[in-house]
């Protein structure tokens, strides 16, 4: 079969899975008075449609910020506004000020789901396809298989089409940014990433690598003339994009400050928690950049020194809602970054699966158990089958050189790759058991939170392992010739 038909089959399967998941419940369905993320998105449509721009981020008589006040950057607000115009066309009740609070109906759910699907098709899916075709090694069939696995990645599908969010927009834009950088279109890349940043402030976590990479590239070209000019061009692009996005808020200095206050609610004590996760996701992401450019390795090293403290902070998970979106963002990047190391796919499957597992309590609350079980099993099965992960997990391919040296001193006859395989199945079994117990068994009366805590402890242990592993890989590994060739 030709490539185009294979690709279209993959995309169609991805779309089918997405829409099939959307048949199920969403966050906060039928749970007044606050409902959930679904209501938040609907409320933003209501606010942006009915109120003038300068009231969007302020607590006014018409805008109660305590009821899902806007706390995303302007681009999200504009997106809501566009959606609101369509909603108004279809049914004015959906966006009526006040009256529409907590509005729920079958047709409205359809409309909201359709908006997610639309942005997904427009932004995320083309980015994934291009990414796989430009930046993955292997035959074209291998590329299609990789794209297929990314498209069917259950975390994103469940959060966007089950729980309800627009992660595909910010992730897709950031991915376009990576694509731009990878293809050498630095201006386009920085434009796309700035847009991502202006869609969801969470993308800040990924901004440092972008910055480092671009700066490093300029330095390499020589900061005196060519590099400097390049730097100016890039910074102009970023500044102009920012200015355009923030234009309606620039008339009065109070406005942008209030927006920033909404975006980064330091007063609410969230900041530390967010930063903690920043470092984690950064650490993983940096790896791509090191493959792209040598300069940034210095930055990675500095970041590594901050690692222990950030790990410590990670172990105190608070504000589950926020973390979820976060985990999801970094996760998708995990997945992409793994494609650079396509040989260590065994770990991808496990890691992705694990992060995903940690979402279980939330998804249970949303009544999304069935799609959760089905999509996770399907994904696990697919990634194992299509990418035949287990067969490829030999020691060198997993880059376990360091551990080998370490263990050989103590246990000379140890077969590491076999241990890893056993560990894989053991982890899976543990996860399955935990999922099962948290769904069907009642926790003992003394420890009502036993299962969620167990899930997060187990997931955390895995995260920890992966972070150590990736740092090791990043530091120990010689430059890969192929990826270097591409970036040059």
């Amino acid at each position, binding site marked *: *079969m030709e490539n185009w038909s294979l690709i279209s089959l993959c995309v169609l399967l991805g779309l089918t899975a997405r829409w099939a998941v959307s048949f199920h419940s969403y966050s906060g369905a039928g749970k007044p008075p606050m409902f959930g993320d679904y209501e938040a998105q609907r409320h933003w449509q209501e606010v942006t449609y009915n109120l003038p721009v300068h009231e969007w981020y302020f607590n006014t008589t018409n805008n109660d910020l305590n009821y899902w006040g806007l706390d995303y950057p302007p681009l999200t607000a504009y997106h809501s506004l566009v959606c609101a115009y369509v909603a108004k066309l279809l049914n004015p009740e959906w966006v009526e000020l006040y009256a529409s609070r907590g509005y729920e109906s079958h047709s409205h759910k359809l409309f909201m789901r359709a908006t997610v*699907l639309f942005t997904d098709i427009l932004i995320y899916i083309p980015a994934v396809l291009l990414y796989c075709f430009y930046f993955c090694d*292997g*035959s074209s069939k291998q590329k299609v298989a990789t794209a297929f696995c990314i498209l069917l990645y259950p975390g994103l599908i469940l959060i966007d089409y089950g729980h309800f969010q627009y992660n595909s927009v910010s992730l897709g834009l950031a991915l376009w940014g990576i694509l731009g950088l990878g293809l050498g279109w630095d201006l386009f890349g920085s434009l796309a990433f700035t847009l991502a940043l202006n869609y969801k402030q969470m993308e800040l976590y990924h901004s440092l690598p972008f910055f480092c990479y671009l700066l490093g590239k300029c330095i390499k070209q020589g900061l005196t003339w060519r590099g400097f000019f390049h730097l100016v061009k890039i910074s102009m692009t970023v500044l102009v994009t920012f200015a355009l996005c923030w234009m309606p808020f620039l008339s009065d200095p109070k406005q942008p400050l209030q927006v920033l206050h909404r975006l980064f609610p330091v007063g609410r004590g969230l900041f530390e928690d967010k930063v903690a996760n920043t470092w984690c996701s950064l650490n993983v992401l940096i790896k791509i950049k090191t493959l792209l450019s040598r300069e940034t390795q210095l930055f990675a090293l500095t970041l590594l020194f901050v690692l222990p403290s950030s790990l410590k902070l990670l172990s105190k998970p608070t504000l589950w809602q926020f973390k979820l979106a976060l985990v999801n963002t970094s996760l998708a990047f995990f997945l992409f970054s793994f494609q650079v190391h396509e040989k260590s796919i065994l770990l991808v499957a496990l890691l992705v699966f694990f992060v995903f597992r940690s979402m279980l309590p939330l998804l249970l609350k949303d009544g999304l158990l*069935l799609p959760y079980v089905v999509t996770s099993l399907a994904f696990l099965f697919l990634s194992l089958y299509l990418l035949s992960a287990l067969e490829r997990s030999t020691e060198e391919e997993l880059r376990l050189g360091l551990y080998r040296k370490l263990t050989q001193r103590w246990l000379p006859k140890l077969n590491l790759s076999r241990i890893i395989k056993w560990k894989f199945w053991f982890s899976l079994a543990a996860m399955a058991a935990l999922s099962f117990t948290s769904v069907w068994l009642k926790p003992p009366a003394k420890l009502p939170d036993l299962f969620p805590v167990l899930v997060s402890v187990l997931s955390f242990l895995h995260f920890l392992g992966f972070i150590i592993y990736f740092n090791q890989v990043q530091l120990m590994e010689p430059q890969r010739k192929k990826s270097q060739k591409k970036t040059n």
Partner: protein
Amino acid sequence: TVMAAPMTNDQSWFYALALGVSFLKCLLINAYHSTDFEVHRNWLALTHSLPVSQWYYEATSEWTLDYPPLFAWFEYGLSHIACFFDKEMLVVPNLNYASPATVLFQRLSVIVADVVFFYAVKECCKCLREDKGKDLLGKPSFILTVLLLWNFGLLIVDHIHFQYNGFLFGVLLLSIARHCQNRHFEGAFLFSVLLNLKHIYLYIAPAYGIYLLRCFCFTQSNADGSLQWRSFSVVRLVILGTIVLSTFAVSFGPFIALGQLPQVLSRLFPFKRGLCHAYWAPNIWALYNIADKAFSILGVKFRLLDINKLPKASMTGGLVQEFQHSVLPSVSPLATLVCTLLSILVNLPNSNIYTIFVILSLLQPALFKIWHRPNGARGFLRCLVICALGSFMFGWHVHEKAIMMAILPLSLLAVDSRKDAGIFLMLSVTSHYSLFPLLFTTQELPIKIFLMLLFTIFSLASLKTLFRKGGALLNPLEVTYLLGLIPLELICEFVYPLTVWQKTFPFLPLMLTSVYCALGVTYAFIRLYISLLTCSDTTKKTKMQ
């Protein structure tokens, strides 16, 4: 390469496809389900809570038991698992009961029952000639597996609309596979079981009868392929008869003993229905209806007909109703029966019933060729498809779902010869599109389009790869016709609902769909018919033996 790895484990791709489609089916559990869901819930309830003697008399719900006894026993068996999910669904007066546990159980029962279908597909793949060394995606068995397991019609009819066709087609395909493997007794047994599960398969019973008689009871043919009368094996006929009769005895015996046979039969064959369903199946009668409509409109316009004398034609109504033709003569059940019989009998290859229909044979001398050349399992399959398609084309009160009876066996032929592949593409795309009105809810609109595209693109691309040599599978006219489905879909489901006519003529898109599809199905039928008449040259390809 990546694809090479799965191939090392020879059959693993089959399980991957089966598991993948099962995952998809599980995701569809919450999707829309039609009244057939309630039909089957009601059957669960009545078989569970009533004695056998009441099964075919019970009429609390309007959806009375109208499948043969073995299916009732199947429901009876299911009901014993159902009580672990939700006991309330097994109460007969609980009409339209659809608690989440009920939905889960009923959906899962369909998904699990499809295991029979998986097994049957696997057995069918064994009958195919395997090209070694080919790319996995170009293997006939791989293509056949996808065409059957991921069949669009089965997915939407069983797992969204709600029915147990997968399981039933599993029995049918398994019986076909057994015949291909020369295990004729098993095949005959399976088919008689199938008849007692759902009597719609009676339409293809002639193919089975003739095939078993001609190719199995007559043990030898002459050198030129004609019948050798002396080779008739009475033993085989007796064993076959015993198998079939005993199956029927087990199924209908209790009801005969209770003296309920007339009641059971009246439930199975309700003759009070109209020629066409509320939504016309895309067959000859859809074209007949539209011609009638056109004549009556023209007649009124040119004052040839008096508008007051025309019978009030209502095509917009709900369930089952009669449709009076205005100009063309109204069609009676008997007429369609004759038409169906003619279309089937005219086409029976390998049959000695032709001696009875000498006149017909004289009308079509080409048939002699086929009569002289029994074509083995391939000919049998072809005959089966013609029977199914013929009955679909001319049958009384045919439902559009009945087309699957032709499409699934045709898939087996499609991976075997390029001519059939072309016919398969035409028929499957057209008739799958004609299933669209089954799912009329907005929520399912994207999924039916995605799945349809998925299946169509796969079948087009894979069959094209399989028959790479020898030019295009479809001629430009056929391609144009198929592409015409896209604007048709856009008009019917996107543009038309926004227009003012939606309120006054809500049936127009349905009519358009069924007439447009009827053209394609009729064309495919004619092509299949012609290929049957001219297939004497392909007799050498007796691969399926």
